[in-house]
């Protein structure tokens, strides 16, 4: 009896072992290695040595704090706009979709079957100064002759919104989908107007979804660099671009590692602060919603 009890107690650990091991070796350990690299000095010619050179962090902040702040600002703006766009769509599919719910959801996600590099390059083409859209606008004198979208923050944020919208829509959709329509009927029976029903019933119930949506949108948007690389210009460089350049063009691994850590640290602090502000202690519970 106790043997099978023991086996039963071991089962979850055995189940968890392979995945946990993989994550520890290829996620946790590399993060620690990166921490160690960030305090090394040297260059490719002479090799890098561990010197506990913590001032790389202050150097990184001094050189690139503008890009850090800019990335966070872009992240906040893009996430906010994503929420505004995504919520009505998620609501519509969840409550008005009927038997077509899964088809509509699929239709919404269909463009994301195509590689995002192709999609973003298409936007690069569509939004070009003398391309189909802007030349029409110029012809109709809706904008000045010098008007351009590409190489401005508008293009980069637009690209970010476009590419990360599904991350916003889906969590909200899942949360809304769980709302029992009987609750809405009940509120109607109690003479609540539709807006009141929404404000007092649906919205609060969807908050876990909104939280997850904000989390899953803000973090990748802030750390993205592809949109800025394809659609951006001189004043739209994000911290992701800097990290990538430091790794691959300047080959300055310690600085790149330090910048990555500052980014990750900042995001984690932001996430936990946001969770606290929503009044929940268990971030994981929220995110699992």
């Amino acid at each position: 009896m106790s043997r099978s009890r023991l086996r039963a107690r071991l089962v979850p650990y055995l189940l968890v072992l392979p995945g946990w091991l993989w994550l520890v070796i290829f996620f946790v350990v590399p993060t620690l290695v990166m921490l160690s690299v960030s305090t090394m000095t040297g260059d490719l010619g002479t090799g890098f040595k561990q010197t506990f050179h913590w001032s790389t962090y202050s150097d990184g902040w001094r050189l690139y704090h503008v890009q850090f702040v800019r990335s966070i600002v872009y992240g906040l703006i893009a996430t906010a706009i994503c929420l505004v766009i995504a919520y009505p769509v998620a609501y519509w599919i969840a409550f008005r979709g009927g038997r077509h719910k899964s088809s509509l959801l699929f239709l919404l996600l269909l463009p994301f079957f195509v590689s995002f590099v192709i999609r973003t390059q298409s936007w690069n083409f569509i939004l070009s100064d003398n391309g189909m859209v802007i030349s029409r606008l110029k012809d109709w004198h809706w904008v000045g002759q010098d008007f351009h979208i590409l190489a401005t923050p508008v293009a980069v944020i637009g690209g970010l919104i476009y590419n990360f919208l599904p991350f916003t829509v889906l969590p909200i959709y899942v949360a809304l989908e769980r709302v029992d329509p009987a609750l809405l009927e009940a509120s109607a029976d109690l003479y609540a107007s539709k807006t009141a029903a929404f404000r007092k019933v649906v919205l609060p119930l969807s908050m876990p979804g909104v939280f997850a949506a904000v989390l899953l949108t803000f973090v990748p948007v802030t750390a993205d660099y592809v949109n800025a690389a394809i659609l951006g210009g001189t004043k739209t460089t994000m911290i992701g671009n800097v990290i990538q350049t430091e790794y691959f063009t300047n080959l300055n691994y310690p600085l790149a590692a330090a910048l990555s850590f500052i980014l990750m640290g900042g995001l984690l602090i932001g996430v936990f602060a946001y969770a606290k502000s929503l009044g929940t202690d268990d971030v994981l519970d929220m995110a699992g919603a």
Partner: protein
Amino acid sequence: MSDDRPADQLPPDLLRGLTTPRLTRRRALQVGGLSALGLALTACSIPGAAGSKLGLSAARKEIEKFWLNQHKTGQFRFGNWPLYIDVNPKNQNDHPTLDQFTKQTGIKVTYAEPIQDVGSFFGKVQPQLAAGQDIGYDLVVITNGLYLDKMIGLDYLTPLDQTRMPNFYANASDLVKDPSFDRGNVYTMAWQSGITGIGYDPKLVGREITSWQDLMDPAFRGKIGMFADTEDLPSSALCAIGVNPETSTPGDWRKAAAWLRKQRPLVRKYYEQDYVAPLSKGDIWASMAWSGDIFQANASGANLKFVVPKEGAPIWTDNMCIPGHAQHPLDAMTYMDWVYQPSVAAALAEGINYITPVPTSAANIIKDANALTGQDKASLKEFASDPLIFPSVADYTKLHRYRVLDAQEQKVWNSLFEPIYQS
């Protein structure tokens, strides 16, 4: 027609620059690394490379011994940049010169285009080179500059077999023989050279562009493109302020950085290599550009012009070299010298549209032209005398190589110029 050959009469100061024995001894001393690549593997540190140093004649003996032990294997792997070889118009994967090579020598070529820019390619292969491993290619094409200097300095390249370079020594132009970045062609043979000048759309710009200062014209605000790198960008800025990059001083660098900073508000974007489509679409009107790119853009229907600014412009050379621990060095060596025959160089020049290292190939191009008729004949004849493919002696006085930097200077240089395109 082909009187303007940059072969024999070079201006004396250029000749002086080409032949000053600045780095011969240092380079040759580091060649000894062929026999032993030290590995600096400290716990928790990224391995660098340690070269060993031998005397000059001992080094030469080592190289000879190495090549005596090599045998042809019947194949080699060629890693190149994209769009940098002739292409069969009917079949994009077929490269007629490679087929010709295989037919004549029996050596099969595995051709790939993994190099997008030198920095990231170097970053990718550096660990393997440092660890003494084969990087998957026997022949690669590396631009002169910081990374080629690093590769030479770190013993990552296999020195060439000087006895197997007859075509090179017979036909190579003086620009690429014994260049400042590889004295004596110990490690490299030029593939193609190119000029970094200004490409512009004459319709949108409305006037002729003749100078780097034109890229400071407030009339082009927001319509200017510059490069995001630490070689072409600073060198062009140095030319713009009237300084020869090759002999520039840190004081000059600071002035050049100031010029670039003044220009920043007018620049739309600092491009890596992707300025051509915006230029042809009209997103930018004028940009730093590579000579061959403008050629190829015009062949695809664009109407752009390329100009070498009057203050001068950087000229760079992409070089064939054999990485360390290559598996098929002798076959690669055979190919490298084979392409220096004028007929082959002509075919390559017609396909690549950059500066060929074999000036006498112009005659072969004329011959090819005479075999055609009408418009094709005329444009090919024009091609054979185009100063962007066959620069004249006068043109060469305006073209300058990059500054060769040591480790200390690199730090200063990078700290001055990286923030310009990175912020």
